[in-house]
């Protein structure tokens, strides 16, 4: 039995990513994570599970952390997306949260890291002085298989310190 499939439906979407407006023609079912990685070549956002648990794909949508593997790119239409590259994309001058990870040895393979960075970047605005317990709580929606989390927890507190210093300058 042969049966031909219709070409898949696509839509034109307007999406601001890291401050730049993009107009893209994408299949309706294409995930935001795939559009970021494949169409926009922002490969800093990683995919670890594609079912919303690991948090590797976390980006900010209008400043709030969201799982980009659980969203169609079409649903982000008209919103502002910030990826890890939008937090800081210059290895010579890392942003405060990124610097905190260097200081605390908060990463090993680095695969989960962008998801932690986007999560923490939003968190420390909300809570500028997290206790160790609060810091742990803040990152306990993201999986990391390498670090054992201890140094990531320290990095949350260090990031808050660096942000406070930055703000007071």
């Amino acid at each position, binding site marked *: 039995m042969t*049966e031909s499939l219709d070409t898949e439906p696509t839509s034109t979407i307007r999406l601001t990513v890291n401050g730049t407006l993009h107009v893209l023609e994408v299949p309706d079912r294409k995930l935001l994570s795939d559009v970021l990685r494949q169409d926009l*070549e922002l490969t800093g956002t990683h995919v670890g599970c594609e079912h919303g648990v690991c948090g590797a794909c976390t980006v900010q949508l209008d400043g709030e952390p969201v799982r980009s593997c659980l969203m169609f790119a079409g649903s982000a239409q008209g919103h502002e997306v910030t990826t890890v590259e939008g937090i800081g994309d210059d290895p010579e001058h*890392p942003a405060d949260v990124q610097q905190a990870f260097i200081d605390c*040895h908060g990463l090993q*393979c680095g*695969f989960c890291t962008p998801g932690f960075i986007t999560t923490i970047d939003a968190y420390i605005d909300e809570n500028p002085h997290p206790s160790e317990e609060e810091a742990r709580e803040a990152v306990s929606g993201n999986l990391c298989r390498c670090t*054992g989390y201890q140094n990531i927890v320290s990095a949350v507190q260090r990031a808050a310190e660096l942000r406070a210093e930055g703000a007071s300058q």
Partner: protein
Amino acid sequence: MTTRLFGQKITRREDPRLLTGHGRYVDDVSGSAIAAAFVRSPHAHADIIDIDVSGALDVDGVIAVWTHEDLPGEAAQRLPMLIPHPSIVAPHTGYALAKDHVNFVGEPIVMVVAENRYIAEDAANRIEVDYRFCDPVVGVEASRAGTRIVHEGMTDNVAAHLVQEVGDIDSGLGGAPHVLELDLEFERSACMPMEGKGVVARWDSGDGSLEVHSSTQTSTGLRAVLAAKLELPLTKVEVITPDVGGAFGVKINHPWPEELAVACAARALETTVKWTEDRREHFISSAHERAQTQWVRVGFDDEGRILGLDVKFWHDNGAYLPYGVIVPLNTSTHIMGPYAIPAFRVEYWSLYTNTVMVTPYRGAGRAHAVFMMERTMDAIAAELGLDRAEVRLRNFVREFPHPMGLRMQDGAEGCIDSGDFVTSLDKLKSLVGWDEFESYREQARSEGRQVGIGLACYIESTGAGPYEGGHIEIESSGRVNVWTGLTSHGQAHATVFAQIVADELGVPLDTVHVTTGDTRKLPYSVGTWGSRGAVMAGNALHLTAKKVREKALRIAGESLEADPEDLEIVEGMVQVKGDASASMPLAAVSVLSNPLRYAFDESARAATQFAKESDEDEPSIRPGEQPGLEEQEFFSPLRSTVANGIHAAIVETDPETADIRILRYCVVHDCGPMVNPLVVEGQVHGGVAQGVGGALYEKMAYDTDGQLLNASFMDFLMPFASEIPHVETDHLETPSPLNPLGIKGAGEAGTIPAATAIASAIEDAEGIAIRSMPLDPSTLWHMRADHAADAAHSR
């Protein structure tokens, strides 16, 4: 003098790139390449009657659909058995795409290549496979029973069988005043790196060459096997391992079926083809580890000294044996741990089942060995009413080197080369407050809380050979390029190897640049596994740097008119020892090392002042010399080093819900001198987290039909930050005599004893013997009920 970088907590040089989204993992390499997806068996054991791919061919955007018949030549033959071993009695491996049979849920049967992964999956869903079902064999018990057989032509399910013996076990056990028997059980888990496996294969039809990017742990191994399977000259295949998002063992097997199938497709289609594993695929078709059923019989004296230890265990190796028997072999050779045991006998059976194959996972086989030995130690202490730490102390090896009398995975006799177990135990006891615990327990009890403390000692053969190499080149700019064939998956190789090289060469750290896992520069390498990276490549690079340094001093000596013996390199300047006035930059030495002197940069122009008049009777390059300040060297050890350590855990168990909480976790660890303590600590933290996962949460739940019931992160519970305790560490550095740097491996130290230390603590809290791991609250709750019923019964 430049300060020595070895031993310093240097922050990682790979971080800025990875943190700013500039990492380059395998799926990042070629986003637009056409993509493969696989049809996998939904059945654990079946014959394939028919495959109908016609539905897939009609899907817009599909480029090719391959079954086993489409695989060319050698690629259609069975996948290799990578590490043969005399104990293997029935070697079975699978195919890149299943031929006539499937032996586990997840086995690849058809490959679809399409414009992108979405379309490839659409098409894969339209492929119909007809099966004739066979009875599946699931779990050690079913496999041992042998009433159902996994592989046709066999009369049982035994893949391998081995006995090793030290001393006389019969008299050891026979003469012992006390004898105990233990039945133990260790469950299946899996590495679960956050990045799954992946491959991007690019065929260049112009010169008939294949370039493969893979998230492998052994780029040289993958290169060689792809060349063999695609029947290509080795020089026409290169493998590049970019950034890898964690591996922990699962990426050591090679080739994975997909790596081979995708490479074949790239060649046939004359293009670039990629495959990126999704999480469900990783669960059902990548390797697992851990499942064993164990039996121990131990004889000991009134003081708790072991006189004889007899062990049997049955290891579930899954459907195939592509990586040989490293896991059960490691278990068998690590059981004696840090103890001097006069008579020892171990016998194992490695068994086929219709489940995903088993290959090494962090702590490969050793976690299981520790479980047997340390549960035994606790049982002896309980039997004699002795302190558990004291029993261990009485059995410790005290003289080094200590030959173990067993053949290890590298084929050499195992030997504990160094260590000081007595001091380690002292350190651990004071770190965790062992002697004060009883008063803490009392206090907790008065608050209605139930706590327990446990410990577990381990040894780990690390830094296995046969060799590892280094390649170093100093550019005329002074930049030092370093290559090692080892791959890197988060172990900070770019930092620790730079520390080692910078020390030996006397150059600033930031001039040293390390490249790992690229077969184009260093085709001879073994791979990153078994805590061997720092030991093997670290020492190889140390030796290579020495060789480069010698050459640099020889060349500089001629210009400075000094004996090379009298020269040193400080901050990148070659100078007469203690006299910076007669000096030249290493960059200039590099220029001088190459008689082709185009003055295209500053150092080349500057070097002319050091150049000597050339001798008319001699060629520019003397016999035996090579142009360039560049050397290669290899390190090959006599045998594996043996690292060691002790973990302790304090747990609290809820009297109502049986919830288990880790209150404290302490590690004393001896991997010899630490190149970078920051990195070692990180390895320990991460290892403990995996161990805690294995102790309390992670377990592969197969049903009797061979379906994996928990193949997602929603159902297979990997710990988040909320489940992992703060880890307290202390170190002891006893150098190994087996390599110039004296180092021993550290990669698996955190994982190996974790489940066992936690078992010991739960047993102490509950007063119920813990004989199987992992342990979840509901199992503990039922154990309590059974225990209470038993106690009532015996009253």
